[in-house]
């Protein structure tokens, strides 16, 4: 299956997270099946590419951003992000649901959010009144970790 260039996906990150357009212009966006990939490199005429850049979005009823790409661009977000204190950050990394204080809840729109803790961009969450962790299992905090 071919990668098709569709740079209009930049707008999703600008509109949803307030990431400056000039930051998003660093990436070209490429659609293949249900996945959308972000690529910061020089485009080459190469056939049969397996992967092009980093997975940025999955298409479905709504676009779902990937934790991996949010960890790259999340520091530039100006809206729909949550900054968790250390203990809640650990819970989020374990995949647990987080109760948010009303002041934070007011600032968020329903849907996908970027979850930070201080300078760490932890990844993608889903806000529906509570904060659900969408951290992929391979990145989830294990009991044996420090």
């Amino acid at each position, binding site marked *: 299956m071919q990668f098709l260039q569709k740079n209009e996906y930049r707008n999703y990150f600008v509109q949803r997270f307030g990431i400056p357009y000039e930051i998003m212009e660093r*990436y070209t966006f490429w659609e293949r099946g249900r996945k959308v990939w*972000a*690529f*910061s*490199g*020089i*485009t*080459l*005429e*190469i*056939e*049969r*590419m*397996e*992967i*092009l*850049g*980093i*997975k940025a979005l999955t298409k479905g009823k709504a676009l779902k951003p990937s934790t*991996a790409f949010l*960890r*790259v661009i999340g520091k530039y977000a100006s809206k729909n992000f949550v900054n968790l204190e250390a203990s809640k950050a650990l819970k989020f*990394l374990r995949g647990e649901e987080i109760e948010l204080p009303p002041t934070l809840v007011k600032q968020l729109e329903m849907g996908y959010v970027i979850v930070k803790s201080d*300078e*760490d*961009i*932890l990844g993608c969450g889903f806000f529906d009144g509570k904060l659900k962790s969408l951290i992929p299992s*391979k*990145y989830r*905090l*294990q009991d*044996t*970790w*420090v």
Partner: protein
Amino acid sequence: MEEPPLKYFEVYRSIIPRFEDFLMSLQTMQPYWMRVNTLKIEEEKLVGRLEKKGFVLEKFGELNAYKIVEMPVKHPGATIEYSLGYYYIQDLASMAPVLALQPEEGDIILDMAAAPGSKTTMLAELMRNTGVIVANDANFRRLKSLAGNIERLGITNVIIVNRDARTSSFGVKFKKILLDAPCSGEGTFRKNPWGFRGADERGHRYLAEQQKMMMRNAVRHLEDGGILVYSTCTYHPYENEDVVKYAVKELGLKPVEVDIPIPHTEGVKRWGEEEYEMHRECIRIYPHLVDTGGMFIAVLAKK
């Protein structure tokens, strides 16, 4: 516990300097080394965080490379910082081929045998996610680990392909190529002495033939004036100097002298009946020099 099978290495007594020290080093486990991913975090910040968690780290020279002297976990990857992609577990010796290639922002680079991605991700870090790296591996299953590491480290300038590096076309030419060839892996002995298999004479010759095929294909894809770094993690001259000799004599490449900030020796001058004129331009890293694995590197230019 059974002694590690050191006899295997006796054949190299005449070519490895301070051979007794070399043998001694093989009797100790190789320490873990890590490279800070400066695309995601500043070096000092990460070191501070890990030290606070009980890690003891030793910086190597001016590189963003650290020897892990002590750690509070069984595996150095069992931390939140690792999961966030702030560092990569990579032997110092394995950083040498990347340094020899001298990647710059905007470069167009082919990494011909890229999995699991130690060198690809280091190239991308030094290129600050600009230019482009075509990262290839013939083994489709190994592409998963390559893709996983690229994703974890936040690398965005890589195209992954799945081709036979000996014969396949990549469709374009490159200014720089890294051929870190599959080899008998003698330099990784210290990581797992009891699981080590190595190769016999016939095995080294077979691998050398495969490596020469890859070299020939690499030259096809190199721009005029382009640079190719050939590396292996093994000691046998058939897989190292002999392949470089082939590249010089048969493919018309020119050996280039480069310096790298990691202690090393020059290449082997003679092995059996074979003489290697370009041995001074070859680089060998041995475990007894700075407590690493072993590595061979040669830098070659297309005239």
